[in-house]
């Protein structure tokens, strides 16, 4: 657009351009129609999705991969309710995202009009903030405020609900006089995110760390949001303290680093879980003591003092009481810790050699493992994941759905770079991976993007592969098909006496190869181990279309280690082949 907008619809699109939006994901409909007209002339690339949930997850995937806010736009009513899931997902995983929804005209609000719903009311609990715009003159300012709120402090989703009459040029109510969004003051008297940590507390934390004999750096997704992977590496190496990376932080610290213990929590590896459990100090950096990490809370890390760093003050002390709580941006605080640690000098640090040797002893004794398949067995999902890892460069972006394949991916992939792992951690949204992968690929077109998915997940959002084809955003999908809702099956096997209730999907339908082909993708079915690597290599040679490889996997395979629900992390169950080793280590501390 060249001339200045004169109505709310044009102003909305121009304001998005002014915020630097390059790609948005959406689907038009009645109430948002007037905004879709100026889209034709906009510099913004609009990706037309097949379902509004897809638009939301694509915006999330885009944001995860690029660090820029993801943007989606949908119409009123059912379209708005369809983005509720992605909004909740973005809320729990602190994903910066701006969602524009159409709304019925102002005069019709509250009358049960066609495709009306109380979008701001419905989304209040799943957004960082939302707006109902009532005056077109406010549109540039509110769009600027929305991006500001979404991207600063603890990031999160912001929704802007826009009634049709104020964006429709045929309606006189839409008239407005254009101004640049950042040329007027924001009207957010209650929003002042604090990023600087208190220097006295940082000093106190550095001293507490220096005295710790069994410390662990407990690293969460906040490190990635704060772009703090580099200072984290410096801090860890300076202190020589082992690092665990939560499900949301995989890649924030390189898995190949000798100090990296991998993922803690319910399906974390033995060493990461046990190191936290036996630690005398946990330094929590952008993590939130999620129940999947802590297990039974009253038995979690019983001897550990806590340093908790988070940009959200409400996280400090929410779950676990801290000894030093620092509100601040992780990057700023870690840089402060590095400075003070250097000043203290290496002589100030406690002797941690015994701790390091204990930890490496666990690593040697309890590596991730699984039983190889016997001839005639279906594929082992762990084997497929290893082949996928070995067949791709380290900067490949890996997106995941939710369930066993997600845990296997987090366990068996090697994450050596930040922003290469995109998954739904907090909300656990099945169907996340395919649209998230499309969003990531749209934002990073030069990178290879793989989605790992389960068959249950795939059937929830696979239609977005049509979007990928039509919009020329080719992704690769590794579909782990065990014909079951595998994680639920695992729980029923372990905790419900193998009484399998409503977890078997089907051994026969759908035909995933035909389904993939019908959506314009290449479909490949793999059933034997020797076909796995060649199929992955073949998929990697195809760059003009999406590829779906269906790996027919063994439904009997479970995810280990596992901390059963309600148990403490001291009761971690390892792979059956290692369980006898655990019994030998009972007295070790």
């Amino acid at each position, binding site marked *: 657009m060249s001339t200045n907008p004169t109505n709310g619809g044009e102003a909305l699109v121009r304001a998005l351009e002014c915020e630097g939006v390059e790609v948005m994901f959406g689907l038009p409909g009645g109430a948002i129609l007037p905004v879709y007209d100026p889209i034709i002339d906009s510099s913004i690339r609009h990706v037309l999705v097949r379902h509004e949930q897809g638009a939301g997850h694509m915006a999330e995937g885009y944001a995860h991969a690029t660090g820029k806010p993801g943007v989606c736009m949908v119409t009123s009513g059912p379209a708005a309710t369809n983005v509720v899931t992605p909004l909740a997902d973005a809320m729990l995983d602190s994903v910066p995202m701006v969602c524009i929804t159409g709304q019925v005209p102002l005069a019709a609000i509250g009358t049960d009009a066609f495709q009306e719903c109380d979008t701001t009311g419905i989304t209040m609990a799943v957004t960082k903030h939302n707006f109902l715009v009532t005056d077109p003159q406010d549109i540039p300012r509110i769009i600027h405020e929305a991006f500001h709120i979404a991207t600063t402090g603890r990031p999160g989703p912001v929704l802007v609900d826009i009634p049709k009459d104020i964006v429709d040029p045929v309606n006189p109510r839409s008239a407005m006089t254009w101004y640049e969004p950042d040329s007027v003051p924001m009207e957010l008297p209650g929003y002042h995110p604090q990023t600087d940590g208190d220097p006295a507390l940082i000093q106190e934390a550095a001293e507490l760390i220096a005295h710790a004999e069994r410390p662990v750096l407990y690293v969460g997704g906040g490190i990635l949001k704060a772009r703090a992977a580099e200072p984290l590496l410096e801090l860890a190496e300076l202190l020589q303290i082992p690092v665990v990376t939560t499900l949301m932080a995989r890649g924030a610290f390189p898995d190949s680093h000798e100090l990296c213990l991998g993922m803690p929590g319910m399906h974390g590896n033995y060493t990461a879980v046990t190191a936290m459990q036996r630690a005398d100090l946990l330094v929590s950096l952008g993590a939130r003591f999620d129940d999947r990490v802590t297990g039974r809370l009253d038995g979690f890390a019983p001897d550990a003092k806590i340093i908790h760093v988070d940009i959200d003050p409400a996280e400090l*002390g929410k779950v676990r009481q801290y000894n030093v709580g620092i509100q601040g941006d992780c990057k700023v605080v870690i840089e402060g810790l590095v400075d003070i640690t250097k000043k203290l000098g290496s002589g100030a640090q406690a002797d941690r050699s015994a701790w390091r040797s204990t930890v490496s002893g666990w690593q040697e004794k309890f590596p991730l493992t699984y039983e190889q398949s016997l001839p005639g067995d279906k594929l082992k999902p762990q084997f497929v994941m290893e082949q996928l890892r070995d067949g791709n460069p380290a900067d490949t972006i890996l997106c995941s759905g939710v369930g066993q394949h997600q845990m296997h991916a987090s366990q068996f992939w090697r994450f050596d770079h930040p922003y290469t792992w995109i998954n739904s951690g907090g909300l656990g949204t099945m169907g996340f991976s395919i649209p998230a992968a499309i969003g990531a690929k749209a934002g990073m077109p030069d990178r290879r993007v793989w989605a790992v998915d389960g068959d249950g997940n795939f059937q929830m959002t696979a239609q977005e592969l049509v979007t990928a084809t039509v919009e020329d955003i080719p992704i690769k999908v590794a579909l782990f098909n065990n014909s079951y809702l595998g994680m639920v099956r695992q729980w029923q096997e372990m905790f419900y006496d193998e009484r399998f209730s409503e977890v078997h999907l089907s051994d026969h339908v759908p035909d995933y190869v035909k389904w993939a082909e019908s959506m314009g993708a290449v479909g490949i079915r793999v059933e034997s181990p020797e076909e796995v690597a060649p199929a992955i290599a073949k998929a990697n040679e195809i760059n003009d279309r999406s590829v779906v490889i269906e790996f027919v996997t063994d439904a009997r395979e479970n995810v280990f280690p596992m901390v059963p629900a309600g148990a403490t992390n001291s009761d971690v169950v390892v792979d059956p082949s290692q369980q006898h080793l655990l019994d030998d280590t009972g007295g070790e501390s």
Partner: protein
Amino acid sequence: MNVSSASPRWHTLVATVENKPGVLARVAGLFSRRGFNIHSLAVAPTDDERFSRITFTVDIEGTPLDQVVKQLDKLINVVDISELNPAHSVERELMLITVEVGEYRKELMEIVDDYRAYVLSEGDDRLMLSWSARPARLDELEERLRPFGIVELQRTGRVALPSLDN
């Protein structure tokens, strides 16, 4: 000095919020979805019409007060929030109460005089009274009127400001 009438598990919070549609819903929704309990709530615009002031009495049994304050403070429309120290604040609440007069008008009027309550409306056999005081004193008056027969009762929820003697 005013001694808080509330039980120790009740705390008084005062918040300055933007005076905009939906703000009360955001505050109330937060309480409900995080499992916090509100005992009483009073809200009205301040002298600056851009802002409203909310006085909450919260039941913090089971939820640390700190968490309630921090979560409320995260709401974009909440400009400021703090706890009022009961030792250094003044609390008042208003009650309207309609009671049966019956054959005990004399005894009833003695109570009205005793508490310096106002008679706002009079019927043949009913009186409507108004009284503002510390919440515990309202409880007390309510109990003294109960034997006459309470027809209707409305309390406003408490409002509070810091006292000037600290």
